[in-house]
């Protein structure tokens, strides 16, 4: 019986010791580096943030990017720090950054927390809607001392979007089915940023409000939704034409759906619309082209 008490007491003492050690080290720790007014070594953990940094003219200051930062092409030559889903902390630390930018979701949150514990300055951008993105541009501009460029970018984007809105004003809104995945069939619902893009480009989501953000749907809903345009973003940047062929073959099983009957099935560059980035307007333009009453020449 004695050995059990010995064990419990030892454990209690161990924990108390640990707690007091932790307290003293917390007290002794000095503040993190005072924030540099203009960071000179920035690591970006998300591809759209990389694009943004380039758009703000910060190519020189960019010290590291994730593997999937493929735009602009020059970004691929920068030192790599892992992938968007799994940033490599060792690589980040090895680059001695004075600012790390990341997106605000679970995966990156935990990486940022760990980096902050190590004393690095981090900035998290919460980008779920177009407005969020505009705000993030502003925040980024402030953090990097590029307010003028940030404001110019926001103004330009807002201007472009406004022009687009004016051009399509008054047109009927075609019903759009945005296909994220074909087998099993998943589409973008109303509660996504894609939906916002569709509406800005002059369309309307063929799917009504759903519980899921990206609901899997069945044949019934395909027929019932009466989609007039089907858009499939292609993530792989290979032959868009060939992908469109397989798409047409797939959708031919529902010949009475308006989009299929009219042949309005489009495969577009997924990069432009999978993330909110400075190329936002290009993405909107591409979508708007698909939604024009006359079928575009492809």
């Amino acid at each position: 019986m004695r050995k059990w008490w010995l064990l419990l007491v030892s454990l209690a003492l161990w924990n108390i010791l640990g707690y007091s050690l932790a307290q003293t080290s917390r007290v002794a720790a000095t503040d993190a580096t005072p924030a540099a007014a203009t960071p000179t070594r920035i690591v970006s953990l998300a591809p759209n943030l990389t694009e943004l940094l380039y758009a703000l003219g910060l190519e020189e200051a960019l010290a590291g990017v994730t593997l999937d930062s493929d735009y602009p092409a020059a970004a691929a030559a920068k030192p790599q720090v892992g992938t968007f889903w799994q940033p490599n902390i060792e690589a980040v630390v090895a680059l001695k950054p004075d600012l790390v930018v990341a997106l605000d979701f679970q995966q990156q949150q935990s990486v940022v927390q760990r980096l902050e514990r190590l004393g690095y300055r981090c900035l998290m951008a919460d980008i779920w809607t177009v407005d969020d993105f505009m705000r993030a541009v502003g925040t980024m501009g402030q953090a990097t001392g590029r307010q003028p460029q940030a404001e110019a970018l926001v103004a330009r984007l807002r201007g472009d979007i406004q022009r687009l809105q004016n051009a399509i004003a008054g047109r009927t809104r075609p019903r759009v089915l945005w296909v994220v995945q074909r087998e099993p069939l998943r589409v973008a619902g109303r509660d996504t940023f894609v939906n916002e893009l569709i509406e800005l480009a002059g369309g309307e989501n063929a799917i009504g409000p759903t519980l899921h953000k990206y609901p899997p749907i069945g044949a019934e809903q395909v027929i019932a939704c009466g989609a007039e345009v089907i858009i499939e973003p292609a993530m792989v940047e290979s032959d868009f034409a060939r992908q469109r062929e397989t798409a047409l073959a797939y959708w031919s099983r529902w010949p009475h759906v308006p989009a299929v009957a009219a042949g309005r099935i489009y495969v577009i560059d997924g990069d432009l619309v999978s993330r909110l980035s400075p190329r936002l307007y290009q993405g909107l333009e591409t979508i708007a082209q698909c939604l024009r009453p006359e079928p575009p020449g492809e």
Partner: protein
Amino acid sequence: MHRTLSPRTLLIRVASAAVVLVAVMLACALVGTERVSFVNALSGGSDPASPNPDFEILMHVRVPRIILAAIVGAALAGAGVTFQAVLRNPLADPYILGISSGAGLGAILAVIGGLNWTLFGRSPIAAFAFAGALGTVWLVWVVGRVTGKFHVTGLLLAGVVVNACFSAVIMFLTSIARSQEVHATIFWLMGNMAEEEFFVLWVSGGSVLAGLVALFFISPQLNALSFGPAEAQSMGVNVRRTQVVAFAVAAFITAVAVSLSGLIGFVGLIVPHAVRLVFGPDHRQLLPLSSLVGAVFLLLADTLARVVVAPAQLPVGVVTAMLGGPFFLVLLMRYNRKVCRLT
């Protein structure tokens, strides 16, 4: 002639294994995606004005992770030994009584619920996973006792049922969650090692070590229990008390492991078997040696997972399965004299 275990033999073996563990820890500290110069790192701590990345990486990134891997590996292997003994089932692993689905459910609830409060400054996922794991074991224990005082069949069945139900709930929640949340949960479920802060490592390490010592204390009773509760009781073992202590402690250290690193399979199942094949089934030896071997194994697996397809990372669970399987087969062929019977 020592036909049974003596304290001296045990101490020698445990000490040797501990030395191997320390050596592996040192070796793994020098392996990673970045070239780290040991000499450079030794030259001193980080001063904000002139950061020393070698030191940073070594002391603040690698060492905590290495300690974490050792703690988790030891906990999973020790729990595996215990569950196999109490359930008298060589196919038991630490997750058999619903711990995995309970922890997963806790994790996904935390992710989806968007809760923000933390335990010791760690993410809510860890706290909820811990609570989920322990809560589920308790549930299985209560449900499983319907078949009678000592029967383990009831526990196993209850574990299967609870696992199935919770997995279904997890799948449903996964289907309605945002894609990032889904990814986060799945990633967590596949097992990952992250650097934790000092206090977390200190407390977890101490708790796991205390748990393993407690299990060592009841090892003679676990030996006797292998013959069945009636036989064990005739040999003077308090079967009820042994079962309760074994389950509670093993579940606790598994919950700690799972909250630290997600679900990592294979370690708790294979390491006990491998050690048993080489050293025999005496739990006084099997338990400490399995814990140490489990720590080494997970450490190696994690280091490999980080390095083999850099800059991406393999999930640790994949590496443990790929490493463990063939290694175990080799052992089986060489030591088939002591193969355990799957009766």
